[in-house]
């Protein structure tokens, strides 16, 4: 199996793997993480709000997303969203959103469910007195959230948020089901074309492992630095 292991195959494929594949993977990860954290924070705020109905809506959303396999959601969005768009806009043909937009929306919506649970824990970890003090000074709900509660919640939860982002980075490889050229997709395409499955899949595994391992180490170091002195 390893007798004719050919490093040259990997070397030749490097520009394609990284410039096309990894760029896509990292872009998707970064955008989906930002979108997911923003949406997740709003969902967490809904879930913790006292406005009748909002917590239930948020809870249903989170539980729904967490009960579905990610691959299914990716498929579902890619194939159904065009028809929903058509139905909504009354267009003659299904609205093509494109593989990138479709996967970005999917990951944002899907990860928001997970990020919202992290942010909910983060907001709840801030003593009630902080919100009371902010209110007592005359800050409105949004001012209090933006200046007092969320900055502390983010700091407390940053390591967990980043760890979840590392999971997201790995999960983005699932877009191969849409034949998208992400990093794994690129490796897989080269593997098929050159008949070099061992080299390419091994190399892909090594790259994913290295990136995630280093990122985890950095998160752990960061964890020690951002802790708020109380």
């Amino acid at each position, binding site marked *: 199996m390893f007798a004719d292991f050919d490093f040259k195959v990997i070397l030749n494929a490097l520009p394609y793997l990284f410039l096309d594949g990894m760029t896509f993977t990292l872009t998707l990860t970064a955008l989906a993480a930002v979108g997911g954290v923003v949406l997740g924070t709003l969902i967490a705020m809904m879930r913790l709000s006292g406005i009748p109905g909002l917590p239930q809506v948020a809870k249903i959303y989170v539980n729904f997303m967490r009960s579905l396999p990610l691959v299914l959601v990716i498929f579902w969005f890619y194939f159904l969203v065009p028809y929903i768009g058509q139905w909504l806009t009354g267009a003659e043909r299904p609205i093509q959103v494109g593989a990138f937009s479709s996967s970005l929306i999917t990951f944002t919506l899907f990860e928001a469910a997970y990020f919202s649970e992290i942010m909910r824990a983060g907001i709840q970890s801030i*003593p009630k*007195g*902080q919100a*009371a*003090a*902010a*209110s*007592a*000074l*005359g*800050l*409105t709900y949004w*001012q209090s959230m933006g*200046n*007092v509660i969320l*900055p*502390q919640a983010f*700091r407390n939860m940053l390591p967990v948020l980043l760890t979840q982002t590392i999971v997201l980075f790995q999960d983005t490889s699932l877009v191969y089901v849409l034949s998208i050229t992400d990093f794994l997709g690129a490796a897989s395409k080269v593997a098929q074309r050159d008949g070099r499955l061992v080299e390419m899949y091994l190399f892909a595994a090594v790259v994913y492992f290295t990136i995630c391992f280093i990122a985890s180490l950095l998160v752990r170091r960061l964890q020690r630095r951002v802790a*708020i*002195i*109380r």
Partner: protein
Amino acid sequence: MTSSAMPPAAPAPNPASSLEVPPTGPVTAPLATPAATQAAPGTPMIAIDNVSKWYGDFQVLTNCTTATRKGEVVVVCGPSGSGKSTLIKCVNALEPFQKGQITVDGTQVANRKTNLPKLRSRVGMVFQHFELFPHLTITDNLSLAQRKVLGRGKDEAVAKGLALLERVGLKAHAHKFPGQLSGGQQQRVAIARALAMNPIVMLFDEPTSALDPEMVGEVLDVMVELAREGMTMMVVTHEMGFARKVANRVIFMDKGEIVEDAHKEDFFGSPRSERAQQFLSRILSH
């Protein structure tokens, strides 16, 4: 036996003039520069009228009625669980109440049309656990609400904050974070933070209960100074020494009711209710 009504109509004297200690000298600027109020001296700044509050079936406040006039220092005391913290938190609507009315400087607290953030910005509050914002420096703690709520510019807010910080003796700590200060220092910063908003009245919710004994004094000193400058204050505390020194009136609460509402001399001299007598004998015996 109980006296939940306001005490006799004798107008509250300026606390400074009722004591031998002269008002603030010319050397030091006053701690507080309250914003203009509608209330003339002697009229109620905080009027609590027949307030009742329930947590589910449990009644925490029962028909509480009292008033704090402009320039008056009112100490609220009573055993734990008597509802005194809850009552003071009702004044700036941090706690809702189901029955009755509270009016602060002519504004109804429970009225749905009341702009609560605006009202709260005029009512300073100091908490038992300080509640400084741990992720912000002392300077930012002092200037945040000034800028966001009062719309002051950064320079103005910082200058105001630093001036107050100097008055509470902590100017050297302006760049630090709350976690780097002692409890007493944090509480003094918290008082400065509340004063930076030019409040018309200050509420203190057990400001010294979470402090080490040796730090209680430094916080009380600031509060005494504030009282002598004529700040309207409502103070929930067990510090009877503070009450004796600067309070005009003492309210004694038990089981959610205002049992006694009397002038300081009457309260310490001859409390009318048995429960207040018991409380005082227990708290003053050592």
